[in-house]
């Protein structure tokens, strides 16, 4: 058994008096796409924010076997975790190209330019708009930019918070098929939280279902997609 890239054990998080996560456990292995499904308020966003050090938690979070408990969010980025937050993860006043440069903020190597070109290959529309401000992009383009921005830090693990939110179905499909390609070509491990269960399970290796701050079901993506309870709850069938 290889060492997981991310191991979360008994993770608890509270916002003020409200406990959102009641001790959840899950793991993500290298090169995997793992999806966390759940309804609004189940704790999906909180889970990701815990991993990237945006909120205080109790329990264990380990990256490559090392605890991140005492690290700040900017140190966690340097450990190879990138996070695309919910909604718009872009810098509206900065140009597309500047957004990508901010993504590479932690890097000092010479390949930043090459990586920007790779982003433009992934999403040619971003190349066409490279001198436009991010705020002037459409929702789908902004999401592409947010993902590209995150990839610019050359993460081992990419966290994505409901990338399909508010986007037209066609655009979401394009976006998700790009994720598969990025995962395959660049070997980026992905942890995606989603409400769009069908699409997410289609591209994922494994999945977890989060209900009221607890993991209720877990398994391989193709098993989950055929699970009756999940079909009823999330796939509308």
């Amino acid at each position, binding site marked *: 058994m290889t060492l997981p890239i991310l191991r979360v054990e008994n993770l608890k998080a509270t916002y003020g008096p409200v406990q959102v996560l009641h001790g959840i456990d899950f793991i993500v292995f290298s090169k995997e796409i793992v999806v966390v499904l759940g309804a609004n308020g189940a704790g999906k966003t909180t889970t990701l924010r815990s991993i990237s050090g945006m909120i205080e938690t109790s329990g264990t979070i380990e990256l490559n076997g090392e605890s991140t408990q005492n690290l700040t969010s900017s140190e966690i*980025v340097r450990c190879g975790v990138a996070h695309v937050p919910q909604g718009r993860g872009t*810098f*509206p006043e900065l140009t597309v190209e500047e957004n990508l440069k*901010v*993504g590479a903020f932690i890097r000092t190597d010479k390949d930043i330019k090459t990586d920007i070109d790779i982003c433009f290959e992934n999403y040619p529309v971003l190349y066409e708009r490279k001198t436009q401000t991010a*705020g002037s992009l459409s*929702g789908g383009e902004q999401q592409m930019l947010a993902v590209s921005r995150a990839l610019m*830090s050359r993460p081992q693990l990419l966290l994505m918070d409901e990338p399909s939110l508010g986007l037209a179905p066609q655009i979401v499909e394009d976006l998700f098929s790009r994720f598969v390609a990025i995962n395959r070509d660049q070997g980026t491990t992905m942890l995606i939280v989603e409400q769009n269960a069908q699409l997410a399970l289609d591209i994922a290796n494994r999945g977890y279902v989060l209900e009221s701050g607890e993991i209720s079901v877990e398994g391989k993506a193709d098993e989950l997609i055929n699970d009756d309870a999940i079909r009823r709850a999330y796939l509308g069938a």
Partner: protein
Amino acid sequence: MMLFVGRIWGPDMDLFLQRVIDALTNGSTYALIAVAMVLIFKATTLINFAQGEQAMLGAFAVLQLWNWGLPMWWAVIIGMIFSGILAAVLERTFIRKFDPADHLPLVIITLGLFLVINAIAAITWRFDPQSFPQLFPSGNAFTYNNVRLSWYSIFAFSSCVLVLIVLQTLLTKTKFGLAFRAVSSNLESSRLSGINIGPTLQFGWALAAAAGTLGASIYAANPVLQIEPSMMLRALIFSVTAAALGGLDSLWGALIGGLTIGFVQSVVVQYIPFIPNEMSLSAAVVVLLIVLTLRPSGVLGTRAVERV
């Protein structure tokens, strides 16, 4: 209006030109303080009401260093560094603890700093006006009839433009500048990109204070003015107005705003007879009101363009 034009093109052309030159001179110093406020506003959407007092304290430090025998421009440079360090300490001690998204406590803190710094300066240097070293060559560069363009005016204006160019370059061409603009655009995503928010903003505060100290030093070096602890009170109001007029997040807007306010203060008040001199401050604010009614984000400010 006819009256206004008639009076300008009449025999008093010289007076008019002189007033425009005065506007340029005053406007440049307002712009330098305004630029400092714009820097902080850009990063935090917060108006630092203590900016003028920090600048005044910096100018006193310059005076003190000069009194101790330092060459004048060395005194200015070390004074700027001193006020930059002080601002960094203030940011770390009083500002960073608070949620940057909650403005009210922060505004009250800057007002508190305003009072404290003013009091400290008053205790240390008393309210007696003192003369400030001449930073620029004295005398006039150019005289025509009764119109005098002093070296001071030329240098004050060029210093302002120079500072703007330096800041502009810093913000657009350096990694710090990129981080600074990222922080001002999206706090959360900056954090998620590995930018250390605190030190970035802290450097912004230091930079703003250094620019402000240069502004206050130039202001105090005006041959017709002297330095005293409350000298920035008027200038502060003019500078806030200038910053808002130009667009609170635009560096060059601060220059345009500063010059406009300088113009209103010296030209409009001179020629519109029913505005007494005592009302020059209010006249400036009325102009601000008119401009903001027509362009809510100021002359060069960013209009929020965001597709949803």
